[in-house]
């Protein structure tokens, strides 16, 4: 029975669009998100936050709370584990300040009371004495010799000696001889680009409900992209064991990478431990903007040389990313993704990780890639204008294909960049005449995919239906696609599968739902678990028939005898076997636990029409088309949804979203009023085209699709805006004031 390499070539369920299993709960208000849990005796926690960008904490006086009957617990840094190092220390330092407040909004202390109003009142009675220190929030400023030091000794070994302590990471990749390549060029263009930090902007605030007893046993309910990671981090920060803290992932109201980080769960546990009551913490929107991670802001320099025919001869880029008050900005990803769509003989990318007095950056959909694409694809666009070349043709001339050596090292397996470009070329959008005043922009984008630790369990019920337990929170409709996979493999109806995100006590460790890995890795695990179950079904039937395992086979939902020698047995359906499994050997469960390899990278090409009001700098997006390689779309509606969602977030980032700090380093727009994410009336219809170039590393050909869709929009829109306004925009967001300013400067 060779199940390992079985691949369903023609699909019955995969590729269809059934309604999602969690849909009815979500349209009726019954789905339970992070803040929707309540327990008897539950208290409400609230967190006091620094009003300063950088300050020494001289003292925290909580004496006013000592006789306050409404206050059930108070915690500060002293209530957490003190012997942490590395990233564990970073996480603790971020969720509860130690000696210094490192950014506006940094947590200082927390209280628990019977009501949230009481808790908020209690916070006002805590007196904190600060010594305000000089601060820095700009990446270039933070690298300068005289910049305030965020923290000595944070630099990784990759950083050359003698650099400022704020410079904490260095990356270099590439190949060939860049200088020689530039000599071959007919035209060399180089430019500086800047992008501002953008927040993931999930609508659901971080929320948790936690219980911890004095013996260190804990229960956590929270909205997270990775509950196993929450258990691990909480155990470390509280000196407990990962297995003693059971975490259940609630429905998650958007994450986009931002809910891969841990912020409030350890605080709620610490409060609960002191109060011996469950404690709920829900962040306010203000806290989310100030104290959870947006992505990095950047300063980039890109230089490209090109022949008159459009062939790139050399490319070089420097990507400086600030990651807030901690190491970890995705500068290596910027450097690696920047030139990934192009087959280059000579390429060199450098990344710098820089600390600032800002919140610790968190992953945001393809971290690092969109900004790098903005810089590189803007220059490619400029070449097209100067050399009068078609933007799609230039990209096709240079596009990577199977076997190309990537700019970051490995050779590409089968990939679909050319297919997305060809589809763009023949798309009605690209052929449509461009109206007066409108600019059309094109950009490609690239993102990785990976496997990661994955464990699933597929249990057969007595009635022949199946329960799938996965350990990856469903952030994009994965329970629907996993149910489709089980249905496909077992030949049972989609409705007869129930997929559940199991808690941390139920399954082995599962890596966070990030890196577009769930459909690939959990999908692959689900296929394997179903195959494991089929194998067990065959064994069971063989046993019932008194045959060897080799004498039976699986076909279309039935176990059948392999040939005349096996005897004349009626094929047994899953339901037949399930009905009697209690008597024939017990429960039948399919498993999979591993870290799957074989993830396939993904490329996209976007086309956008934008119109700039030259008197006010206002940009309207007139038309938008996303074309992306999905490998194989399990549920096309949710793939389209990922394409559209990424494009919409990219539009916001390109045009209006930004972190605005004042001179004191205080965030000025910590709310949805002035952190301007796109509203329904801002956007046109977003057309999508799914390209399916199968990933050879997955039985169905699946590639991760969630993140690539945010890689091209910044550049595509910048190229469209630049065409419409007649100027090259080198800074994001391209908000109306910045566009007018650039136009004015251009006019002298």
């Amino acid at each position, binding site marked *: 029975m060779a199940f390992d390499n079985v691949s369903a070539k023609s699909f019955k369920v995969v590729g269809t669009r059934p309604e999602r299993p969690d849909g009815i709960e979500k349209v009726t208000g019954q789905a339970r998100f992070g803040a929707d849990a309540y327990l008897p005796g539950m208290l409400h926690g609230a967190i006091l936050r620094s009003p300063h960008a950088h300050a020494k904490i001289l003292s925290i006086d909580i004496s006013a709370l000592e006789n306050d009957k409404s206050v059930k617990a108070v915690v500060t840094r002293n209530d957490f584990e003190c012997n942490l190092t590395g990233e564990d220390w970073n996480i603790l330092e971020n969720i509860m300040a130690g000696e210094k407040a490192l950014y506006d909004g940094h947590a200082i202390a927390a209280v628990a009371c019977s009501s949230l109003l009481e808790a908020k009142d209690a916070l006002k009675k805590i007196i904190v004495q600060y010594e305000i220190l000089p601060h820095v929030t700009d990446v270039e400023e933070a690298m300068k010799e005289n910049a305030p030091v965020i923290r000595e000794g944070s630099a990784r070994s990759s950083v050359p000696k003698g650099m400022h302590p704020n410079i904490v990471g260095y990356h270099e990749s590439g190949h060939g001889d860049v200088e020689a390549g530039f000599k071959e060029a007919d035209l060399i263009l180089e430019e500086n680009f800047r992008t501002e930090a953008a927040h993931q902007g999930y609508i659901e605030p971080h929320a948790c409900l936690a219980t911890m007893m004095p013996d260190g046993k804990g229960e956590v309910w929270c909205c997270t992209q990775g509950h196993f990671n929450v258990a691990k981090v909480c155990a470390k920060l509280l000196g407990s064991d990962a297995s003693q803290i059971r975490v259940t992932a609630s429905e998650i109201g958007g994450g986009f990478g931002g809910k891969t980080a841990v912020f409030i769960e350890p605080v709620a546990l610490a409060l609960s431990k002191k109060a011996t009551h469950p404690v709920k913490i829900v962040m306010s929107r203000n806290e989310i903007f100030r104290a959870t991670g947006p992505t990095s802001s950047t300063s980039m320099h890109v230089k490209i040389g090109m022949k008159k025919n459009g062939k790139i001869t050399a490319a070089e880029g420097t990507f400086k990313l600030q990651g807030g008050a901690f190491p970890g900005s995705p500068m290596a990803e910027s450097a690696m993704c920047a030139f990934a769509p192009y087959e280059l003989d000579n390429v060199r990318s450098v990344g710098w990780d820089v600390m600032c007095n800002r919140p610790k950056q968190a992953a945001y959909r393809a971290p690092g890639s969109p900004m790098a694409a903005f810089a590189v694809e803007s220059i490619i666009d400029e070449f097209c204008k100067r050399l009068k070349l078609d933007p799609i043709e230039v990209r096709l001339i240079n596009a990577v294909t199977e076997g190309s050596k990537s700019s970051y090292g490995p050779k590409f397996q089968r990939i679909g960049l050319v297919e997305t470009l060809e589809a763009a070329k023949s798309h009605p959008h690209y052929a449509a005449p461009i109206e007066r005043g409108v600019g059309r922009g094109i950009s490609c984008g690239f993102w990785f995919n990976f496997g990661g630790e994955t464990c699933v369990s597929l249990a057969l019920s007595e009635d022949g239906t199946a329960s799938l337990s996965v350990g990856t929170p469903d952030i994009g409709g994965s329970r629907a696609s996993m149910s489709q996979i089980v249905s496909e493999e077992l030949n049972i109806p989609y409705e007869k599968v129930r997929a559940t995100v199991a808690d941390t006590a139920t399954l082995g460790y599962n890596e966070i739902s990030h890196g577009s890995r769930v459909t690939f890795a959990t999908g692959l695990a689900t296929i394997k678990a179903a195959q494991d179950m089929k194998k067990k079904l065959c064994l069971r039937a063989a046993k019932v028939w008194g045959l060897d395992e080799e004498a039976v086979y699986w076909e279309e939902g039935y176990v059948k005898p392999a040939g005349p020698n096996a005897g004349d047995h009626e094929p047994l359906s899953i339901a037949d076997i399930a009905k009697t499994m209690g008597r024939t050997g017990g429960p039948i469960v399919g498993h999979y636990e591993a870290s799957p390899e074989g993830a396939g990278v993904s490329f996209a090409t976007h086309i956008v029409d934008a119109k700039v009001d030259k*008197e*006010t700098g206002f940009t*309207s997006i007139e038309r938008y088309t996303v074309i992306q390689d999905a490998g194989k779309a399990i549920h096309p509606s949710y793939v389209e949804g990922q394409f559209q969602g990424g494009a919409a977030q990219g539009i916001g980032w390109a045009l209006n979203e930004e972190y605005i700090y004042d001179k004191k380093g205080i965030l000025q*727009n910590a709310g949805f*009023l*002035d952190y*301007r994410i796109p509203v329904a009336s801002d956007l046109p219809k977003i057309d999508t085209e799914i390209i399916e170039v199968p990933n050879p590393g997955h039985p169905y050909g699946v590639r991760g699709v969630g993140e690539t869709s945010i890689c091209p929009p910044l550049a595509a829109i910048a190229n469209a805006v630049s065409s419409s306004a007649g100027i090259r925009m080198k800074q994001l967001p391209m908000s*109306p004031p910045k566009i007018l*300013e650039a136009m004015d400067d251009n006019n002298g």
Partner: protein
Amino acid sequence: MKYEAPETIDQAIDIYSKFNGSKKILAGGTDVLVQLRTDIVRPEMVMNIKKINSLHEFCIVDGYWKIGAAVSASKITKNTAFISEWPGIAEGVGLIGSTQIQNRATLVGNLSNASPAADGIPALVAANAKVEIVGQQGSRVKDVYSLIEGPGKLHLSKDEFITHILIPLQRDRSADCYLRFIPRTEMDIAVVGCGVNLSVKNQSISSAKIVLGAVGPKVIFADEAAELVLNSRLDKDVILKLQRMCEEIATPISDKRGSIRFRRQVAGVLAKRALQKAYARALEVS
């Protein structure tokens, strides 16, 4: 926090004037609740005035459109007679927040909040609107422009509050317009606003008021610019001069919503566009 919900205006005056602590009037609540939530205000008493029938009035009385303090924005923008008479005021009111906000927010609340960027105010000022104020000493009427002291502040004594807005009936061959600039299509605070009210005679402008919002601590009368367009038909050169003049008249600050330079530029553009629109409307009704 004490919560009061009087049912008559006399009760309201009594409660409000006798309460000595910090207090807030709750009409639509769309500003007050945000301020409560974000700790910008911590009043000891909130007085909900929505139960007072007379404050729901929205009708013509003695030559004025009378709009009660409890009338929601969506009630105003649904009134076809009012919209056709004062399209600019209705535009301003209609721009205050989302559908949800429109169903709660009031024009009196927008005025009382006295934000320099209030969308409701410039067109009211251009229309020479007044307010009716009540307090211990009885009631008085004051024009909207002189009522505003500065950001968040009105010239009201501690015991006083506004009950109605009074908008004179529009003159013949006249029309108004309000335009604002925001970076998105909805949900933002005005970066610049401009209200225009004008009359035409023989296709020329016979009177005009141009009021700029969000470019000073309170709305600004662009009188020089209004004078410039008098007797004109908004020819190209007049419009260009007007635009430059309004850029000069604006006295904005730089903040998260826009720089001084940007706000000046956009003030000129909006004044031009609002004037052209109001002029076209006035010609239509002439």
